[in-house]
């Protein structure tokens, strides 16, 4: 009987710890984004784009940009491969629009990809925005283990936290319409929190 009690206690502890480490739900529009910890890009231009100093890692809260567009992708994902030119188009649109370029930063997180694999994807599609590897899925787990590609758009709140204003798996459709949608949603989010 004593054996059983200790087992019940042990299993309960195990279940509690398993729940604590189980992947989180995918953050939806209107919810807060976890303050993800990500590997700092080695490339100086990419660091400059994100406004980061050299280092091992950074957190979302270290980024100053008002709006973040994050693509969860994998080099191995055919959908992401097909979508890559469209995401480049979107980046190009943002870059050309000086107001949007000031407000928006775009980067990708390569889930279950090594830094080599992320670079292969970067070179293959001549991607100009930063791609950050997530080899052990530590980041992927925190965003609900979403399928790839998945796009998050986050807006910086007054207190520095990041609010999700867009969270969808699959492509975002036309790049110009997506930019317009983001600017509208960011405006609404700003209106909601004066």
């Amino acid at each position, binding site marked *: 009987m004593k054996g059983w009690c200790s*087992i019940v206690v042990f299993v309960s502890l195990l279940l509690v710890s398993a729940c604590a480490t189980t992947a989180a739900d995918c953050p939806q529009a209107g919810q807060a984004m976890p303050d993800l910890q990500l590997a700092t890009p080695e490339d100086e231009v990419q660091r400059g784009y994100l406004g980061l100093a050299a280092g091992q890692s950074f957190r979302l809260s270290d980024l100053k940009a008002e709006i973040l567009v994050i693509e969860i992708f994998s080099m191995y*994902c055919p959908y992401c491969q097909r979508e890559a030119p469209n995401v480049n188009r979107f980046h190009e649109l943002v870059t050309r629009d000086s107001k949007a370029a000031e407000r928006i930063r775009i980067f990708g997180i390569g889930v279950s990809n090594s830094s080599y*694999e992320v670079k292969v994807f970067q070179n293959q599609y001549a991607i100009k925005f930063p791609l950050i590897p997530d080899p052990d899925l530590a980041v992927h787990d925190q965003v609900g283990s979403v399928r790839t590609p998945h796009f998050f758009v986050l807006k910086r709140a007054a207190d520095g936290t990041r609010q999700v204003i867009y969270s969808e798996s*699959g492509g975002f459709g036309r790049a110009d319409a997506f930019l317009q949608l983001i600017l509208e949603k960011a405006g609404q989010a700003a209106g909601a929190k004066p």
Partner: protein
Amino acid sequence: MSMNSSWRALAAVTLVVLLGAGPVHGLSEQFKDKVYQIGELKPVDSRLQVKVGDKAPDFSLPSIGGERVDLARYRGQKNVVISFVPAAWTPVCSDQWPGYNIVKGLFEANDAVLLGITVDNLPTLFAWTREMGGLWFPVLSDFWPHGQVAASYGVLRSDGISERALFVIDKQGIIRYLDVHDINQRPDLETLVKELEKLKR
């Protein structure tokens, strides 16, 4: 209940909890609701019949392109990478070949061809690779006699699927690298490319 059986029960529960810890790889939206979830499998379930330095066992298999592919045809011409994957329409496999699909240049730069092999039949392989958007490399069916080629390399598992295994074979037909990978994980691309680069020296 004896202490012994209690601990056995505990071990079983522990295993279930650990196995339920979630996916170990990302999955493309491309295969949404179309892949069969096989769960976590025993990492390796076969005994290799070859080793580095051996002559690679010859084979002749039908491909989804319609022609038969003989390993011998590459002798003296090309290095060959054989990628065995366990089964069509399963999570990790559906993610592995699409990655190779965008690095044709890395294989060509190392004078290598890639052959993909599974134990599935041709119609299944055809439908599955179409879902990937088509592949540049030959995809071969080791369906009948079932898994014969996989067995000759020693990568046929006890349930009839193959291991997730890579073999690098040089132009003389000698195995220069092999990796019978944990079936639940995708092999790292950089390791494979470095092994191919070694063949140049």
